[in-house]
């Protein structure tokens, strides 16, 4: 079905089946306060299974803040307060009975700056599965490490030096290590906060290809400053400005036929 669709729409700009998969994340009227300051003014959106959604917008527009709401990383900021509802599948993730540990096992995250643990490559990957008791035996763990690294496209480069420190890898390799670390616990959603901003173009291409492959299995939400990147990888793109979600649409639509004036100004480079 997929190939048929691709062939059929080959002439068009970005043929993608959007919204055909079930909804994975629903956000309704999400507001975030840092102390008294409202940083996000009521964002609502649906994110579907196995799609890549990109958040774009100028600095300080709230896109990272919203991303961090989805695995409750904002909990670590003492002054932050979140209102509204976010559901992962049928679960309200801000329900007091929800254990944040369980949530974060389901919603993984990759950060702007690669942050491998100062341990061996193997230990970096094995940490998550070990935490959650996902591997019963050492061989299971070895298997998880290998398949995570393979899926992150890093296996060939590091298979002979799994004991070497993860911090000794290049920036791009470190970021793929962090992605491998995130998928080692088999999350359902992967959040990426500007994952390529510290990488050179070749490493960026690596990571982007990886995202497109991972899409087959995972829901991916990516924050990016790079509009070309959003255009290259995202099925749908959301434009944030000054704490508001201005517009969310199929990527091709958003870039070619934006509905809002502010979106048009931003994507055509008039500000931001």
């Amino acid at each position, binding site marked *: 079905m997929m190939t048929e669709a691709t062939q059929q729409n080959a002439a068009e700009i970005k043929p993608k089946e959007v919204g055909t998969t079930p909804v994975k994340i629903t956000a309704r009227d999400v507001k975030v306060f840092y102390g008294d300051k409202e940083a996000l003014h009521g964002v609502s959106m649906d994110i579907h299974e196995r799609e890549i959604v990109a958040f774009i917008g100028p600095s300080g527009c709230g896109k990272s803040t919203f991303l961090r709401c989805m*695995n409750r*990383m904002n909990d*670590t900021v*003492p002054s932050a307060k979140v209102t509204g509802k976010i559901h992962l599948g049928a679960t309200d993730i801000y329900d007091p009975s929800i254990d944040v*540990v*369980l*949530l*974060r*096992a389901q919603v*993984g*995250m990759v*950060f702007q*700056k690669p*942050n*491998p*643990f*100062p341990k061996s490559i193997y230990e970096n990957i094995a*940490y*998550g599965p070990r*935490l*959650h008791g996902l591997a019963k035996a050492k061989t299971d763990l070895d298997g998880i490490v290998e398949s995570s690294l393979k899926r992150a496209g890093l296996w060939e480069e590091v298979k002979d030096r799994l004991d070497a420190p993860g*911090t000794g890898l290049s920036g791009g390799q470190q970021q793929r290590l*962090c992605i491998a*670390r*995130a998928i080692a*616990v088999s999350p359902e959603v992967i959040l990426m906060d500007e994952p390529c901003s510290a990488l050179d173009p070749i490493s960026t291409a690596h990571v982007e290809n990886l995202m497109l492959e991972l899409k087959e299995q995972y829901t991916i939400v990516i924050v990016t400053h790079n509009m070309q990147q959003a255009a290259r990888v995202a099925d749908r793109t959301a434009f944030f400005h000054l704490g508001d979600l201005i517009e969310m649409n199929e990527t091709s639509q958003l870039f070619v036929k934006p509905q809002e004036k502010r979106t048009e100004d931003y994507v055509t480079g008039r500000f931001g």
Partner: protein
Amino acid sequence: MNNATRPNSGLDGFASNEERTQHIASTLKRRRSKETRFRFMGILAVALSIGLVGILFGSILAKGIPSFWQATFVLDVDFSPELVKLESPKPVKEPNESPARYEERVNEWANQLNFINWNKLLLESVAKVLPESTENPRAVLEMFASSTRFDLRNMVIENPDIIGKTERLDLVASANVDVWIKGNIDRSLPDNQQQISADARKWADQLYAEGVIENMFSTVLFTNSDSRSSPATAGLLGAFVGSLMMMVVVILLAVPVGVAAAVYLEEFAPQNKFTDFIEVNINNLAAVPSIVFGLLGASVFIIMLNLPMSAPVVGGLVLSLMTLPTVIIATRASLKAIPPSIREGALALGASRVQAITDHVLPLARPGILTATIIGVAQALGETAPLLLIGMSAFVANVPSTPLDPSTALPVQIFLWNGNELRNFFEGRTSAAIIVLLVLMLTLNSLAIWLRKKFEIRW
């Protein structure tokens, strides 16, 4: 300056670029000389501090190092059966006898040895090398440390088979002989101002020239405790053991409590007025004069809790209180220095906060915590004032066998020896004790550096 009438080459009032460049060039000389002056003052400050430290160490080493060698007689002592008469053989330990009971029997047996004239042994052996010494036995005995006769007795108690044999022994000379031979007293002083008699002085010189008195490495300094009756054999062992016990108490108490408090305050505690208050107070505690902790120890541990006076356990408790703020502050600083991305990485994988800290943050902070601990312990080791107030400045002649026994500490021993009335002798002993303390500190600091290097993880 009027911009309308004067042409400008830039935003300022200068007419041309050359004029501006010239103006900037004219200021350069002043700026350079300022820099030179600043550098010179820096070098001067460094030189001054190195000079002062050099003078301090120089004087300590100059006074202290000779004290590690001490005037010692090398004599053949004849344990003749006429002088050392034993009425019964030393009791033998019976198979089913308790050690305490055996010790009691040995002590009973040893009582008879107290009536033996041990000085006679010394006089006879000196007479062999110096026949005229028989004319003035008092002067001969003046030359020996007063504990020598007990040492001879203890040798016989240890091994009664020695009786009838002649042994070549190293016997510590009296403090006054040591002072005389080392020239630490003005030799031209009149007789009534000298510490030992004219005969003793003459013979000491003579025996030193003959090699009977030698300047030997002073083992008593490390194997004996303080002594007042026999200053020549006063040593550091009791104070050293006391200091060691206090260090153990400090490490066992201040480190776990301090690290736990720091981790809680840094990683878990909510940010509110109360935690701010605690933080300010911890910083204040670090600045409280140490003698105040001594007063606290005296009133709380000794008066309220009835712990024994002069005991290393009380000293250790007081020093722990004093070290706690240092450990807490330094541990918090090293926790703060761990990049938050490491915590976030662990949390995003689903680690709980405790797991993120124990698995990642603490291992990374370990070198910092270790350094903080060792510096805190070294600081405690050198502390004197609070110990004076809990009775650790008492004269203690025994080596403490438990932390509840009375004891002194190394810095207190330095304080006590520095005040000893036998100045000529104890000035050197004090410096020697300072050297021992400094070596101990230096060892601790090197250990801190080594541990830091060993556990340092780069990221």
